[in-house]
């Protein structure tokens, strides 16, 4: 199994079913450190499910996933995989940032409290340190003046930027984005994509599920096209987006472009 590789994320023959519906049918994927992988594909193809298995929000039925050289959700002993306790899974998740389509900010906490919650409670950082770091992050996403606001007082684009800052506060090795701009009004998409591009250029490893083909073309190192629970095609954006070899990829692109 995980022969020491240089990959940040290693996904091997991952299967997942919900009842009788097989949502992931053998996924293999590697992401190198510092790389941006963009996952595209039709609705229901299993993109979100794949992303959620990477930080063990969904358990896989078969196969395994490792992040930064560590198995996610399991401990290997000989030929057996032992499921980890929730506490250990939670600790693993602090190394993996997740940004949701609908932000999922905590509405009863201020922007600052949202950001420092996990560093203080999960990483046991001193509050003062966490606040200082949070202020820097807010500055980085252009919201330095919103620290005391509640999420409900912000626009969708601002909320998503706070959610990104919240994920970054744990200094994760890997960032996962599940359609970060799909819930936004068109004029707010740009400000969020700019923040993500900025992170990409800064060398953060990330996997982004998105329908923004322009973004994929500009930022992705690798584009992955998924359909019906399988990876149909992957490669540099110039290949997958402009010279797809598979008929299904062509059909999908002709619909969204």
């Amino acid at each position, binding site marked *: 199994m995980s022969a020491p590789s240089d990959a940040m994320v290693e996904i091997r023959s991952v299967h997942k079913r919900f009842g009788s519906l097989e949502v992931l049918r053998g996924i293999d994927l590697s992401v190198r450190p510092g790389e941006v992988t963009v996952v595209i594909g039709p609705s229901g193809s299993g993109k979100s499910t794949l992303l959620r298995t990477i930080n063990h*929000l969904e358990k896989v039925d078969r196969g395994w996933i490792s992040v930064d050289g560590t198995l996610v959700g399991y401990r290997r002993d000989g030929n057996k995989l032992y499921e980890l306790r929730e506490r250990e899974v939670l600790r693993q998740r602090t190394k993996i940032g997740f940004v949701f389509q609908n932000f999922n900010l*905590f509405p*009863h906490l201020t922007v600052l409290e949202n950001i420092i919650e996990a560093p203080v409670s999960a990483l046991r950082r001193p509050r003062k340190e966490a606040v200082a770091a949070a202020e820097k992050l807010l500055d980085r996403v252009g919201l330095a003046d919103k620290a005391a606001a509640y999420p409900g007082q912000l626009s969708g684009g601002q909320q998503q930027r706070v959610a990104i800052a919240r994920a970054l506060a744990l200094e994760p090795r890997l960032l996962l984005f599940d359609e970060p701009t799909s819930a936004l009004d068109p004029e707010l998409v740009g400000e969020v994509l700019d923040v993500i591009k900025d992170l990409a250029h800064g060398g953060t490893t990330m996997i982004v599920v998105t329908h*923004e083909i322009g973004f994929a073309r500009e930022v992705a190192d690798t584009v992955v096209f998924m359909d019906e629970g399988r990876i149909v095609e992957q490669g540099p954006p110039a290949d997958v987006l402009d010279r797809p070899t598979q008929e299904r990829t062509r059909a999908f692109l002709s619909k969204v472009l």
Partner: protein
Amino acid sequence: MSLTSDPPIDPPTEPATGPPTGPSTGPSTDPPVDPPAAKAAGPGADHEALTVVPVRHPWRWVAIAATAVLLAQFLNGLITNPGWEWDVFAQFFTAPTILKAVWITLQLTFYGTAIGFALGVVLAFMRLSASAFLRTVAYGYIWAFRSIPLIVQLLFWFNLAYLYKELQFGIPFGPGFFSFDTMNLVGATSAAVLGLALHQAAYAAEIVRGGVLAVDSGQLEAASALGIPRFRQLRRIVLPQAMRSILPNAANEIISLFKGTSIVSVMAIGELFYQVQVVYGRNGRVVPLLMVATVWYILLTTALSVLQHYVERHYAKGAVR
């Protein structure tokens, strides 16, 4: 992709010309009965000069007048009818025996609520747990205690000593370490508190469970994606949000428990209602003494409602609505 889609179309924001002038503003209708008026307010009219005349509600005024007269008569009766015996009321309203009874009523309410809700939270999370066994036990408890009338249950507890002579602490089914005489352990007041709390717990469990279910599942998902410890997720993320829907129902429950303590009078515990009965049994002044109890119940319920307002405001932090 969506960045390069068509620019949003600006809808025409020009307001419609002039206010509607009646049922016949359609373009192709026949000349209305009153053409001059329609024309005056038409496109060319001076919009600044138009004033709004609200609809009049003559019947509303009739209703207000009638209600006011009835209310005045009622208040007049309260003050002038000697049957209310306000002097007796004043004599007993702050009498030491009554104050002591009020205090006992408050204690019953406090312990009934505190223990009831503590147990209720446990039951709620049992009902939400992944274990079918825990879910079933919690459901069985709620089913049982919602099915038994409170007064029946209280009398059961009161007679507990008859069922179990002594209570033993030790290894389950094994040897005991020390034991209590139930007669001493479960005095009348603790039997009452126990009864009220166990009854309350069944209702509290459902209220808490409803509140937890009302919190968007994305909240727990985000919290666990951030690696926030499990207990902290509940205490810091879920419960404060659940409180918003728990509080109005919980306040209802506390207020009805507060008044429900009067049921405990069947156990001869000196709470407010029992004490009032004792006094009017002695002096025969039933109505003024019932008023003593009534006014105390009203005053304290009002205080609870005010408290509810502030607690709700606290938990409304960050809420848009």
